[in-house]
C-alpha cells in the first residue's frame, strides 16, 4: 500500500480506538455513578440493621454508625458521582471513582464489623474497575484499601503492654491478595486494550479499502462520462459545424429551402445537446438528493396520452405505438414532470432499440391506488451480464452496437421512480424484446 495511505489508515485507526475507549470510559463512569448510589443506600441499611443504637444501661441514642453511613457514606459517594455525570470519560474522574470505591469498601467493612463476607466487596470492586480496561485505576483502590489497614495499625494499634498484635501481618496478607488479583486484572485490561486496537485497525483498513473501491468506481464513472460526452457531443457539433460552414460558403447560392434545412439541422442538434446537458444536470441533482419532487393530483390517462403522442413523433413511421389505459381513472398524486421522464425514457428506449415495423405497447393502470406502467417492446433485449448495471449512469448494454445513447435515461428513470417511493422491474430476452414494469408509490401528504 502507498506509504501515505498507510499512515492515513494508522491515524484513522488511532482515532477510532480513542473514540471507542472514550465511549467505554464514559459508559463505565455512568455505571459507577449508579453503583455508588446503591452502595450508599446499602451502607445505610446495614447500619440500621446491625447497629442502630448505642446504649448505656437503659438509655440509648442513634449509633455513630448510622450517622457515618448517611453523611460519611454520602460524602464518599458525592464527588465520584458528580464527576461521573459532569466530566465522564476523563482520567481524573475514573481515578476519583477508584478512590471512592476503595473508601466505600473500607466503610462497609467497618459498618459490618469486619465481616469476612464484606471483604469480598474489595475484590468485587477491583473486578468492576477492570471494566475501564485501564490498569491505572487499580492503583488508587489498592492503595486506599491497603492504607486503611496500615494507618489503623499505626494510629490505633491494639497493644498489650506495648506489644503490637498480629494485625500487622494481617495487613500484609490482605494487601497480598489484592495484589494477586491486580496482576490478573491488569493482564486482562491490557489484553482488552489490544483487542480494541485490533478492531479499530481492521475497521480503518476496511474504510480505506472501501474508499479505494469508491475511488475506482469514481474513476470508471468519470471515464464513462468522458467517453459518452466526447461521442454524444462530437456528432451533433460535427453536424452543426458542417451546416454552418455550408451556410457561410454557399448561403448566396442556396435556395430558401436549403437554408431552412441547414438551420433546422442546427436547431435539432442544439436541442439534442441541450437535452443531453439537461440529463447530466438531472442525474447530478438526483445523486445529491436535490431532485425536485412536486406531487399533484393528475389525470393519469390524459398525461400518458400526451407522453405517448410525443414518443410517437420520435418513432415517426417506423414503429407502432399501442397505448392502453382504462377510462375513468381517479386522479393520482404524482409529479407530472418526473412521470414524463419515466414514461418518456422508457418509450424512447423501446422505440430506439426496436427494429422497423416492430410494435411497442404501453399499458397504464391504477392498482390499490398506485399507478402502474408497463412498456413492452420487440427490440434487441438486454444481455444478462448487463442487468446488474442497467440503471448505472453512463452504462450501455454490450449489444447496442452503433445505436446512439448517453446511458443516462434509465438512471434518471430509476431515480424518478425511487423519489415516488416506487419500484421498477425488467424482464428481457436478447433478440426478442424487453418489458419494463413501473409501480409508483403514494408518498405521504401527496394523495390525490
Amino acid at each position, binding site marked *: 500500500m502507498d506509504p501515505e495511505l498507510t499512515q492515513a489508515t494508522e491515524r484513522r485507526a488511532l482515532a477510532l480506538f480513542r473514540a471507542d475507549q472514550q465511549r467505554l470510559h464514559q459508559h463505565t463512569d455512568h455505571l459507577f455513578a449508579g453503583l455508588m448510589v446503591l452502595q450508599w443506600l446499602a451502607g445505610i441499611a446495614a447500619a440500621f440493621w446491625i447497629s442502630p443504637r448505642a446504649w*448505656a*444501661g437503659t438509655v440509648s441514642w442513634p449509633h455513630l454508625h448510622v450517622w457515618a453511613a448517611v453523611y460519611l457514606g454520602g460524602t464518599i459517594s458525592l464527588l465520584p458521582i458528580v464527576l461521573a455525570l459532569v466530566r465522564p470519560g476523563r482520567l481524573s474522574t475514573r481515578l476519583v471513582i477508584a478512590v471512592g470505591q476503595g473508601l466505600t469498601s473500607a466503610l462497609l467493612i467497618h459498618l459490618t464489623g469486619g465481616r469476612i463476607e464484606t471483604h469480598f466487596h474489595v475484590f468485587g470492586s477491583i473486578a468492576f474497575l477492570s471494566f475501564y480496561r485501564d490498569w491505572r485505576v487499580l492503583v488508587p483502590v489498592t492503595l486506599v484499601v491497603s492504607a486503611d489497614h496500615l494507618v489503623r495499625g499505626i494510629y490505633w494499634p491494639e497493644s498489650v503492654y506495648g506489644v503490637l498484635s498480629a494485625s500487622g501481618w494481617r495487613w500484609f496478607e490482605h494487601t497480598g491478595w489484592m495484589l494477586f488479583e491486580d496482576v490478573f486484572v491488569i493482564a486482562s485490561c491490557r489484553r482488552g486494550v489490544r483487542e480494541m486496537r485490533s478492531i479499530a485497525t481492521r475497521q480503518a483498513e476496511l474504510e480505506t479499502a472501501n474508499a479505494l473501491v469508491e475511488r475506482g468506481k469514481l474513476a470508471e464513472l468519470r471515464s464513462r462520462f468522458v467517453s459518452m460526452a466526447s461521442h454524444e457531443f462530437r456528432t451533433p457539433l460535427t453536424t452543426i459545424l458542417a451546416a454552418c460552414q455550408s451556410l457561410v460558403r454557399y448561403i448566396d447560392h442556396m435556395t430558401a429551402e436549403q437554408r431552412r434545412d441547414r438551420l433546422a439541422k442546427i436547431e435539432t442538434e442544439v436541442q439534442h445537446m441541450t437535452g443531453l446537458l439537461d440529463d447530466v444536470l438531472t442525474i447530478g441533482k438526483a445523486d445529491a438528493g436535490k431532485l425536485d419532487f412536486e406531487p399533484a393530483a393528475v389525470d393519469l390517462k390524459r398525461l400518458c396520452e400526451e407522453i405517448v403522442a410525443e414518443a410517437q413523433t420520435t418513432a415517426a413511421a417506423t414503429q407502432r405505438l399501442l397505448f392502453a389505459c382504462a377510462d375513468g381513472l381517479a386522479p393520482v398524486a404524482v409529479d407530472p414532470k418526473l412521470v414524463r421522464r419515466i414514461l418518456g425514457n422508457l418509450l424512447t428506449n423501446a422505440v430506439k432499440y426496436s427494429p422497423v415495423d416492430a410494435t411497442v405497447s404501453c399499458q397504464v393502470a391504477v392498482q390499490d391506488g398506485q399507478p402502474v406502467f408497463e412498456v413492452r417492446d420487440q427490440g434487441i433485449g438486454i444481455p444478462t451480464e448487463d442487468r446488474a448495471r442497467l440503471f448505472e449512469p453512463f452504462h450501455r448494454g454490450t449489444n447496442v452496437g452503433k445505436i446512439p445513447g448517453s446511458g443516462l435515461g434509465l438512471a434518471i428513470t430509476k431515480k424518478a421512480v425511487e423519489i415516488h417511493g416506487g419500484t421498477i422491474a425488467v424482464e428481457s430476452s436478447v433478440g426478442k424484446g424487453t418489458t419494463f414494469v413501473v409501480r409508483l408509490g403514494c408518498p405521504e401528504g401527496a394523495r390525490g
Partner: protein
Amino acid sequence: MLAGAIWAIVVTAGMSALWAYASRPGPGGQPPNRWPDGSRIARRPDRATLVMLVHPHCPCSRASVGELASLVARLQDRLSAHVLLLQPAGLPDDWTQTDLWESASAIPGVETVHDPDGTEARRFGAATSGQVILYDAAGRLRFNGGITPARGHSGDNAGRDAILALLTGSGEHWSETAVFGCALFDAEPS
C-alpha cells in the same frame, strides 16, 4: 483540584473519627482479685472459670460473643464459661431475649443467664458490655478485659491471645486489655 482536596480532607477526617470511635474503650471496671463470695455463678474447682458480662442490645458485643465461641471451641475442657445478660430493674425478660441471647445460648458448653438489676455485673466490677473476667481453678483473677480488637470488630486480638496463652500454660499469669462496647449502666449524674 480544590474540590478534590476538600473532599479528601473531609473524608479522611470522617474515617479518622470513625476509627477513633471504634478504638475508644468503654468505661473501665475493676473485678475482685479473688472469686467473689455470694455470686450465684457456680465456679468449678477443676478448671478456670470465665464470666462475660453483656448488654443485650449492644451491637458491638456481637463480635465479643463470636470471639467467645471461638475461644470455647479451642479450650473445651479447660474452661467453664458463663454469659450474663444485663436485665435492668423493672424491665421484662423479653428485653433481654435479643439475638445476643440466642447467639450466646447456642455456644456449646456456655451457660447463659439473666443478670437481674446488674447484680452480678456489679459484684464482678464490670462496667462495659463484652467485658471478660477469668479466674483460675483456685479462684484467682487472671484476666480482665475485652476479646475484640475494636468496637464491633472480630478478628485477631490481644485479649483472646492472652487467654489462650494463659490456659495453655505459655502466657503471663495476669493480663488486662481494653473493652470495646456499650456501658452496662446508666451514666452517673454529675
